[in-house]
């Protein structure tokens, strides 16, 4: 049999496409097609179980704009993010700095702070519900004891989002702390020694001069992941309030429309808005922050 001495360009192209095909196939089936069907669905009035559907154009999006529940869920999500993102980043950094300096007790603290990440939220929600209970809860008992009266944390619309944010923080800090600890371990110790010889003394300047700038890539990662998980808050709402006392967040609103009211077309439109928001937010962060954070 005669072998060709060299492959021609078109042969190479076919081989290349053949090799890329399995990955491309999965990409299309798992991401592109669902996204496309979501897009198509969002322009229809499809309801779960219905046998027919109608093309309604942008009606679903107009409806979303005028839907007080969806607008409230947007506002709630933004408030939740406004608390959880800075809190989740700064608090976990602070905890990581404290834990990093421990030598023998370090693994103990790592486990303690990481526990909320590993525990099932539905089970933990029961604990929180009990803790926050106006009559039986430990927190209100403490408040009563110092004369601050009692607060219905879960049923008071003014309190419910801050309380959910706090639980979100509690759940998230351990995870971010582990990432920050990994970042701290990457900082070469002679950097601090050089700084000390150069006259950078005192904790604050060591932090602003070395730790914070050298943790920048870690911080970008933590901000982006925190932002996305804050966007996606759902399980605490479902477990603690079921959207009562005006505590709807975006995902919960989508869940209600799609799986409680079976309005799949409308839910698809809301999902599209949600995806668009996440896309814009993470692109801005990655492009803006990444440029600043990598010093090559």
């Amino acid at each position: 049999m005669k072998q060709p001495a060299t492959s021609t360009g078109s042969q190479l192209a076919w081989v290349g496409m053949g090799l890329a095909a399995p990955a491309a196939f999965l990409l299309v089936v798992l991401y592109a097609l669902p996204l496309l069907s979501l897009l198509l669905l969002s322009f229809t009035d499809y309801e779960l179980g219905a046998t027919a559907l109608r093309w309604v154009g942008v009606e679903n999006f107009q409806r979303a704009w005028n839907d007080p529940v969806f607008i409230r869920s947007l506002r709630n999500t933004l408030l939740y993010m406004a608390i959880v993102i800075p809190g989740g980043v700064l608090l976990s950094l602070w905890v990581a700095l404290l834990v990093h300096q421990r030598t023998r007790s370090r693994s103990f603290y790592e486990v303690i702070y990481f526990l909320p990440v590993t525990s099932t939220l539905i089970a933990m929600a029961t604990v929180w519900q009990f803790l926050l209970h106006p009559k039986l809860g430990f927190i209100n008992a403490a408040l009563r004891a110092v004369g601050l009266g009692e607060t219905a944390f879960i049923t008071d619309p003014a309190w419910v989002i801050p309380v959910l944010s706090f639980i979100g923080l509690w759940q998230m800090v351990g995870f971010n702390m582990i990432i920050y600890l990994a970042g701290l371990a990457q900082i070469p110790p002679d950097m601090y020694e050089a700084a000390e010889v150069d006259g950078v003394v005192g904790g604050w300047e060591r932090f602003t001069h070395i730790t914070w700038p050298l943790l920048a890539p870690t911080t970008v990662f933590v901000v982006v992941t925190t932002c996305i998980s804050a966007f996606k808050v759902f399980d605490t709402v479902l477990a603690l309030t079921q959207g009562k006392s005006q505590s709807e967040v975006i995902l919960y609103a989508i869940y209600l429309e799609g799986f409680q009211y079976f309005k799949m077309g409308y839910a698809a439109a809301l999902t599209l808005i949600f995806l668009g928001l996440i896309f814009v937010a993470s692109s801005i962060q990655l492009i803006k922050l990444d440029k600043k954070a990598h010093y090559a």
Partner: protein
Amino acid sequence: MSASLKLTNVSKAFGQTQVLRQVSLDIQPGEFVSLLGPSGCGKSTLLRIIAGLIHADEGDVQLNAQSVMGLKPNQRNIAMVFQNYALYPHMTVRDNIATPLVMSRMGFWARQPLLHRFWPGNHSIKQEIEKFVMSTAKGLQIEALLDRKPGQLSGGQKQRVALARAMVRSPSVFLMDEPLSNLDAKLRVQVRDELSDLHLRLKATFLYVTHDQTEALTLSDRVAVMDAGQVLQYDSPQNLYQKPDNLAVARFIGNPQINCWEMKVDGLGRLNQGQWLVQGTMPLSAHSTVTLGLRPEHIQVSDNPSLFASDVDVRVKVRVMRVENHGPDWVFWAEPDVSKSVPLTVRASNRSLAKVAVGDSLWIGWALQDCLIFGANGQRLDINLIPGSTT
């Protein structure tokens, strides 16, 4: 400009491990001194104690006859260059070099982020700092790199920036922690020469930590050879090579390692081993054990035992076991034909020996005056060997 440095009985332990044991060193103003030793011998720890980065358990460090034990690193008028350069990756080269000046000349609030732009008086201080940075950078020929970040620099350039950052406040003592070990071989020689020039130019005191004997011997006025937290010998490179105080120093200095073999002194104070019988210029104590040291480059090679130079006292017939070609030199390992003799390392110029291969049989010989003699405790005995008499 330069300062004297005096260490007195400095000791340090990390937990159970004693890292430094009663180390004392006296360094003259303007001297270039190296701390030479294997990894883990405590040389870097000693440097950090001098810098003030680590506290000694006991002992004293004096700069210009003033104790600096209570002073912070930045108050000691020293600068340090680190093995990994430790440049601040988020700052430009200019800001890296300026850091020591910014920290010492601008107040706490004046140098805070944002605030520093508006702080009264900062403008003229910054101009002054820029002037110093510029002149230091010029001295090291890195003006063109000032606006780059460390990530964009090569190893040699980073090294220069690290030097510039150390030089910029004109310290009286430079501490260098293996500054060349991250450079490739060629660059290492080049930067080594530059360091030597720099020392001549700055006339400051240099204390240089290395595990590389070539660096230590070529650069230094004096070298402190360290092992296991102690200074084994503190002397000029020449003396370390020619008159090592003890076996450990003799083994550490010289490449390839010095040949050593133990010999029993007989009842008459002579060393008697087959074909050679020698005695000391001063009597060796009878029935003791001594160690003989012979540098590989002091061994001569010949095909014919009668063709050796006249100063060769000992001639041994050997068989070549292993050969390395080092370009100008051969290094080979040879086993004497006489049984029970240890194999010897020989270093011979390829001018005196055109070719050598495994299995070759040839004669080696050496002068007794080139042998170093160490007593049972490892200390060198200050005597020469002479051919022994049978009476």
